[in-house]
């Protein structure tokens, strides 16, 4: 590990240090530093800041950026009103990691693409311009949607997938832009020409909270398909919230993990469903829309049919249709 400075932030202003890299739980950053994938000259420890509360108001739930994944999953309101989030959190990582990992840090964790982690290998995300060996290599766990010729990494978070379905907004304190509220689609950027840039955040920006709007109507679930039953990243995951009234789908929110460089949500998929009576054929249509631009890279081709099967099973579960 390269030598670095360490400072403990005692206020938001301390944390907005453009020369520093923010650390909270450190469950990902410390690994990255051990491998010298990231070599920040300075770490700014924000864990003493007052960002540990979950506050409920009439219109939203404000989750402090330092709330741990374990605490958030176990929170009564989350369990009652946002079960998709609770389930997603508990589907992620291990108990030990969830105890340490924070809400803000979880959003900003880096990909688990194995080529990103091996410094003997090219990687456009780690070393821009060096190439992407994953495309023709071992890519079983990598993305089929939202990729670019430069990068096919997936975003590893489960929590963020549920938050995307819940229309969460991320509260950011920026030294230049002041307080901002971004949706996850606004915060995450797709790899495009520069896969090293994963969010719109700039040096000094601090995630202070995540806001969930009022609980959605309908049923919620999170389904994660993985290679072993715990401590494995999603091959495919689906966060689903669907409301059915008088035999028709009135609201639908669907977000996907394991498929793309960010938690994936496609309004066109939901448009197919809303206003229609749930049926196996309708679910197939929704899957067609979701996957029309999906592109596999060999080993991960299976994710495309697996996403279809998983989406259809989630929709069947949420609408009560027997498959």
């Amino acid at each position, binding site marked *: *590990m390269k030598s670095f400075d360490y400072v403990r932030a005692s206020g938001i202003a301390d944390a907005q240090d453009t020369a520093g890299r923010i650390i909270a739980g450190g469950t990902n950053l410390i690994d990255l530093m051990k491998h010298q994938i990231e070599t920040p000259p300075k770490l700014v420890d924000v864990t003493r800041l007052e960002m540990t509360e979950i506050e409920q108001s009439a219109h939203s739930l404000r989750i402090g950026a330092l709330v741990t994944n374990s605490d958030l999953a176990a929170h009564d309101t989350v369990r009652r009103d946002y079960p998709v989030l609770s389930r997603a959190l508990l589907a992620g990582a291990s108990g030990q990691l969830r105890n340490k990992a924070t809400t803000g840090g979880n959003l900003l964790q880096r990909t688990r693409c194995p080529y990103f982690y091996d410094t*003997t290998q090219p990687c456009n995300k780690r070393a821009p311009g060096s190439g992407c*060996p994953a495309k023709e*290599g071992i890519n079983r766990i990598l993305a089929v949607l939202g990729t670019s010729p430069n990068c096919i990494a997936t975003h590893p978070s489960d929590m963020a997938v549920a938050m995307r379905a819940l229309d969460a907004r991320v509260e950011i304190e920026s030294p230049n832009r002041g307080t901002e509220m971004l949706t996850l689609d606004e915060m995450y950027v797709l790899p495009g020409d520069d896969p090293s840039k994963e969010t719109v955040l700039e040096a000094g920006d601090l995630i202070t909270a995540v806001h969930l709007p009022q609980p959605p109507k309908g049923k919620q679930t999170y389904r994660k398909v993985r*290679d*072993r*039953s*715990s401590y494995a990243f999603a091959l495919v995951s689906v966060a689903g919230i669907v409301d059915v009234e008088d035999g028709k789908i009135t609201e639908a929110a669907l977000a996907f993990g394991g498929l793309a460089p960010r938690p994936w949500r496609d309004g066109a998929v939901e448009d197919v469903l809303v206003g229609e009576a749930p049926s196996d054929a309708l679910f197939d249509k929704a899957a067609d829309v979701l996957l029309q631009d999906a592109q596999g890279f060999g080993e991960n081709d299976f994710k495309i049919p697996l996403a279809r*099967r*998983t989406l259809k099973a989630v929709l069947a579960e949420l609408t009560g249709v027997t498959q």
Partner: protein
Amino acid sequence: MTEHLKMDQVQPHLLDETGQGVLSVPMPRPEGPLKVTGRAPYAAEYKAEGMATGVMVRAAITKGTYAVDTASVEDMPGYLGVFTDKMVRNAAQGTMGTNPAQMGDKILYLGQPIAVVVAETFEQARDIAAVLKVDYTEDDDAVCDFDGVSDWPDSDKPDQGDLDQAMSDATFTVDSMYTTKPHNSAAMEPHAALAEWDGDKLTLHGSLQMLGYNRDEVADSLGIDAKNVRLLAPYVGGGFGSKLGMSPDCVGAAVAAKALGRPVRVVLSRNNVFEMIVLRTATRQRLRLAADKDGKLLGLGQENWQSNLPDEPMAEPVDLATHFLYGGENRRYGQHVAILNRPASGSVRAPGEAVGMLALENAMDELAEKSGIDPIELRLRNIPEKHPETGVQYSARSLAEALTEGAKAFGWDKRQKAGTRREGEWYIGMGVASAARTNILMESRANVTLNPDGTALVQTDMTDIGTGTYAILGQIAAEMLGLDPQKVTVELGDTDLPKSSGSGGSWGAASAGSSVFLGAKAIRRKLAERLGCDVEALRLQDGVATGGNNRRPLAELMDAPITEEGHIEPGQTDEDFHQAGYGAHFAEVAVNAVTGEVRVRRMLAAMAAGRILNHQTATSQVWGGQIWGIGTALTEAIEHDPRTGHVVNNDLAEYHVPVNLDVGDLEVMFIDERDDASSPIQAKGIGELGLSGAGAAVTNAIYNACGVRVYDYPATPDRIFPHLP
């Protein structure tokens, strides 16, 4: 005095005559509390005065030559040196006793150790290793993948009879190709070495399984006399074959310590372990079965393709159990080992059976399906009377009992036709597989000392790699000497102690156990003399000797400790009998109809391995085998990049050993057995037997659940769901 026994003839059951009653019964490990409270130090936990820390540098290219640019790091904080001298290419193979390949400036795989960087602290050493400039000259003729092999070497295994003819004569045939991915031993403790020199004498704390051989390997690698090497490994955090041979950290630490004149510790990172330590080769296997209308085998064949680095004296013995498990006149084997630029292949738990039994037992399941014969009945019909290739008689072989008693205990009669049992989204099924593991007795020595105060001491350079050696050696001595096992101290893991078999090949318990038995037997003879009775009449119990109408406490028979060495050697019984452990594995699985995810609900293992020395540690060994079977069947796979050969998933986040949630209820039952030919304690190896066939029971259960045959391991969801409706 040395009590020597060459195992030339079957031995009486002395351990059934002794009366202490502390053998075979469940007994927790005496060192357990030390381990769970952190007081059992592992290699990396030792510190030495003035110790420096080394970190291995891995090759960043697949094939070529290299030169390190020491000047690039000399000014870095804490820098002490960069050493490339005597660097070994990979860990030694088990029982090699000589140096592994030392390549000079040549690189044959990405991740090969090319230097050790030493600094004052670990963090400094790791930083220096990360930025050290290495000049590479790359060759462009590396071959990294099976598909790139143009000429597979021929096999030299002889045929028996005519398998092609048998296949055409047969009523039922199976001819299937299987593939298995490479496996990592994934021992919890990474390899580590602390080297200290005193003049010409090297003392090295290591994480090693077979100290006697390892000492020779260290000495040969360094070019010094083995007499000048002392190895210490009293506690080892799992081995599974990965610590059979000396690992590169030992040489790195010793070379650096010598050059710097101070102790040096080198701990392999988990990534290093995946590259510098031997892994199990990938295999391709063609399995053929030819059976008559009654399911009786007319012939069988198993041909395999695998890889290694050049000059490695080890090939995965894929067909090891196939030679003796089932009958059939016509038999064909083939083994083709290609040279690939990947990390070295070597022993990983149950070499041969771990992957060979997947193919054999899957094929037997397919044959059962085709012939309409119950899988257990099919196996029973094919148990041969004599070894089908050598004609040698078998020693104790309770395969039939394991199959039938296991089936009863498991509820096999509730198994339904494939694809007919469903609970909600889950298909449910049951599978069975035979287990077989060749039994090996190795030369082994131990000192046993009985003290007048009724305590005893057992000393041998044997290791306890988490297997229960401390427990069983203490139990054997206690049973033989009539003592509470708590009165027996066991000292292990020091090459200054008598040379043992080491831990490997599941031979440790019977081999080291026999040496302790023999040492204690010699003490019994002395006590009988002093008591004035025939040794046959001697009874030792709770510190009191009885015999020939005499009854005296040990203290009255002894005024000084009695020390005897026990020395066991394999002998003629190895030729006169074919010895193996046998068993049967049963699994019940659920397969998700949507995603193809598999959950193992429960497993049962019925095991027959001669005398069970400690039911608790033996059960733990079999649990380990069952869990490993789940991993082999469902999750474990090293991925090599086909272009560079490097291990892509070189950590425990992406190399998926089963987690608790993957493991359903595990049940273990032992078939009561004595194997008279195996050893004077009538015990056989149990550890690897627990794995043999376990994975096949899982995949056979997958077929019974959902009708999908697994040919390519592991059976991750993508290998299952495309075949589901």
